[in-house]
């Protein structure tokens, strides 16, 4: 239920209508930012913010610190297992002749 995808606010399209342009991996869409706009604050402050977009509406501003905290916990689990370094240095076998170029 409820497909949502992180995107970055790159421009305010219409201040009165509270519409902004959001970039998801090079794809842009005009979205409604009513739910993430702080009353009384300049909408321009939202430019650069990462938001969770659902059906054309920004529904949540992604909390960078929380994301980093989650990842930190996960990395610690891996480190406790003593694995992460081993894997980062490449014990993962390539499949066949070489791995595909995948644009990021």
């Amino acid at each position: 239920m409820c497909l949502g995808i992180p995107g970055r606010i790159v421009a305010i399209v219409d201040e009165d209508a509270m519409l902004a342009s959001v970039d998801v991996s090079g794809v842009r869409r005009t979205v409604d930012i009513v739910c993430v706009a702080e009353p009384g604050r300049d909408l321009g402050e939202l430019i650069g913010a990462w938001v969770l977009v659902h059906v054309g509406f920004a529904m949540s501003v992604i909390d960078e610190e929380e994301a980093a905290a989650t990842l930190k916990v996960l990395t610690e689990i891996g480190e406790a297992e003593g694995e992460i370094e081993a894997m980062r240095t490449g014990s993962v076998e390539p499949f066949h002749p070489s791995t595909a170029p995948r644009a990021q």
Partner: protein
Amino acid sequence: MNNAFPIPVRAPRRALPKSVTLAHGGGGSAMRDLIDEVFIDTFKSTTGAPEDQARFDLAALMAQGDRLAFTTDGFVVDPLFFPGGDIGKLAVCGTINDLAVGAARPVALSCAVIIEEGLPLATLRSVARSMAETAHAAGVPIVTGDTKVVARGACDKLFITTTGIGVVRTGIEVGIGRARPGDVILVNGQLGDHGAAILNARGDLALETAIESDCAALHGLIDALVAAAPGVRTMRDATRGGVAAVLNELAAASGVGVRIRELDTPIRSDVLGFCEILGLDPLYLANEGKIVAVVPPDQAAAALQALRDHPLGRGAAAIGRVTDTRPGRVVMETRLGGDRIVDMLVGDQLPRIC
């Protein structure tokens, strides 16, 4: 009625109106004017008498190979023009590719158009010009054709059918049933561009992207591939239904399993983004310039290098292998190492929000 190009150019002609009318399909002089001006002049096919068919010297064909390949395809696309191509380019490339994946060298194409009355003449001209340019660049002439005009609503603007003949190289045997366990599965570049470009070009989704159709004639690329890997088992252009459909056909026809790896499957980042937003799976998106090639393991490295050395294969990758487990099934090893079945779709993939 079949109006073969070539027809000699006649003069003088009346100026054509701004849009196509039913009179242009009536078989009279209006029709001849349309065909002459829009198609014959543009295709610059050849000279000679106005015959109802193109004719080929058999001896010359037989010198190129030992079997004749013959294929046809109908093209309908909305919109007619889209980033990276148009219906005309699609119709020429599509049929060239259908010949080429059979290891045939394309020789000539025919072109039948069905026009909805009211189509602006400028649109028709621009499609014809695109066909001519594509055919010229590919070195495959359009040698015969037909034009029909139907009443408004009887077709959607413009339908094109192209038919092609080609000559299959002596000694090369390809077939969808020839894959064997251990064979390597190659693609010649990033997947899903065409499907994403078309869906986006319809405009209903209000997304802005720089994604372009990958529409291209692949016979040159396939030449290089076949030269590097003469033992190639099969090649397919991954059009409707995407790579997923081709791999499922392969698994069923060869009675083998197919195992691909998500991390080895090349997809542009904006196509991935497009798919994430709309809940689509890029494996099912159409391509118009991508083939799936199955090659024996000892020729895989040479085949991959040959693809990458060609301008239309720079993003080529080995995406998986043919296996002897789970015959008839296509399994994808996900980026996490889990397995997922890649089944045939029931119908079109629809954008979803859930």
